[in-house]
């Protein structure tokens, strides 16, 4: 596979067996991507073997799944599925992001708001959402509103609680500095507290998006099958297990890529001190 060809090249250059591990270690340190590809490659290999054993009649091999994945991209079904899945996700994340950051900031600044709102979100965060989502349909039916609400229910608590902790734990010496420079309360908030809290708030948004992905998939599996949830239920019902797994893996892929991109953005813009040299 691709991974082994990556590894074989440089490894051949190392002669002594003792140098093997060392060379590999150095290689991984220099190109972290190689170790990731190798670990993925190993995982796919294990998957392929497990599929060939087979551990279950309903468990496809990696190659079958990959082929199904390519077919589903080629015939456009995967892409159009994401078109409808992303709709409630984007609306839900936009609402949770706006409301969550504002609410979190207010809670961080005011003890009163904290007492009023924080317990609700702490409870929501630990609530079994998969059990609560079907209840949404009793009030909001089965349309876009219900699915958006499912996304919000999962994403909002994370965003609010992160924002609240970030603002509450803003560096006290910076706040004191603002005070000693005779800064007003408004200046203290907009020029010191929020900029200082922004990395953690942003991390909350990133975690909120991850939770939102879970929310939208849960909604599509539990409320009405649309988009990617429809692909999963449909292919399962007609026993196209390779296609079903391909759809599941595609979600992992899309959410991983999105989150990695956000993390890269976060490190580049908000936390320059974390950048690797």
């Amino acid at each position, binding site marked *: 596979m691709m991974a082994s060809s990556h590894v074989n090249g440089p490894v051949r250059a190392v002669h002594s067996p003792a140098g093997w591990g060392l060379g590999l270690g150095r290689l991984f340190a220099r190109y972290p991507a190689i170790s990731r590809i190798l670990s993925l490659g190993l995982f796919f290999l294990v998957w392929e073997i497990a599929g060939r054993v087979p551990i279950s009649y309903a468990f496809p091999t990696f190659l079958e799944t990959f082929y199904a994945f390519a077919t589903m991209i080629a015939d456009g079904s995967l892409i159009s599925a994401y078109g409808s899945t992303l709709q409630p996700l984007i609306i839900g994340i936009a609402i949770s992001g706006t409301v969550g950051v504002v609410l979190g900031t207010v809670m961080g600044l005011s003890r009163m708001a904290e007492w009023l709102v924080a317990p609700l979100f702490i409870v929501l965060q630990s609530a079994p959402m998969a059990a609560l989502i079907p209840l949404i349909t009793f009030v909001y039916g089965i349309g876009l509103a219900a699915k958006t609400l499912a996304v919000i229910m999962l994403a909002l608590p994370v965003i609010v609680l992160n924002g609240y902790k970030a603002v509450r734990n803003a560096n006290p010496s910076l706040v004191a500095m603002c005070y000693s420079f005779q800064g007003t309360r408004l200046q203290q908030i907009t020029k010191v507290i929020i900029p200082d809290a922004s990395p953690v708030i942003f991390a909350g948004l990133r975690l909120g998006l991850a939770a939102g992905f879970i929310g939208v998939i849960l909604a599509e599996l539990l409320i009405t*099958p649309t988009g990617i949830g429809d692909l999963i*239920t449909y292919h399962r*019902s*007609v*026993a*196209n297990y390779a296609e079903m797994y391909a759809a599941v893996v595609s979600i992992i892929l899309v959410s991983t890529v999105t989150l990695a991109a956000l993390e890269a953005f976060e490190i580049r813009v908000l936390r320059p001190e974390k950048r690797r040299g």
Partner: protein
Amino acid sequence: MFKGFSCLKTGAAALVVSAALIASAEAKVRVAFGDIASVESLHLLTALERAKEKGVDIEITYLKSEDIAAQAVVSGQADIGVGGPYALVQKVKAPVRMFLQLSTLRFYPAVNGEFYKTWKDLDGQEIAVHSRGSGTEAIMKLMEDRQGIKFSKISYIPGSEVRTGALLQGNVKATIVDAAGRRLLETQAPGKFVILPLEGVNATDEALFANQTFLEKNAEDVDKIVESILTTWREVTANPAVVTEWRAKYKLLPDLPASQVEEIVPYFTELAKGKAFPLNGGGAAAAKDDFAFYTLSGQLTGDPSSLKVENFWDTRSLDRVLSKVGTM
């Protein structure tokens, strides 16, 4: 060396004995339902109680969907499943076979009388069905073909009761509902909705299926179950009201709310009138009908005439029971 060997032999013998003991302790026949028990399964529950009376030790579990019931049977965590695993048998070559048809699809295309009166009126209109690849979708596609019409869009609303509600509220104008939904439409808004005629659709809705090895090793138990069900089905068809007596006799679904208890007799009367209980257990004839229907719905692939009954059905038990109780 020899001593060690004989030791091994006794050990192996002990293992075999204990395995046999475990097997006899586990000789329970585990039946996996793909849905929770409701009024609609009262006759099946009765039949299983009767099989118990004949000495079959039955344990019923209720799973979330038919897919999961099928997976449970394939993986050996259940012995008999309720459902129609045609796709599973064809596509992944799972060694399960159906051995008794429990019900045929009974659905009623219902349209809002203000807008549509006949099949032809649905040309170019939107309809709602249960889900992609479902029996309801296949029925509507079949009628599309037969009537020479074309729907503009098929939308998916899972749950017949949800579609019935949507029809009553005016959210959809044409859909397909089950017997309970049809009755609800007739009681809630008499004359407002038109039930379109549906003929010649005779596909399996639910069947009993099991692993081939289980069917061979437990032929006696399977025969008893098949016989109980066939005789029960014949009794329900002759006298649907008897189901309430059975419910009392076998203490089935004791927590059923009063409103649903009232539904029992009308539900079974309607199905008995529509001949929804296969009196001869389906078998090869049913399989042939299913091949035609499920190739259309996408569950099965290939030319229906090329599909072989023995790849999907094991009719031996049914044949034995039918020769005993006779065909109707």
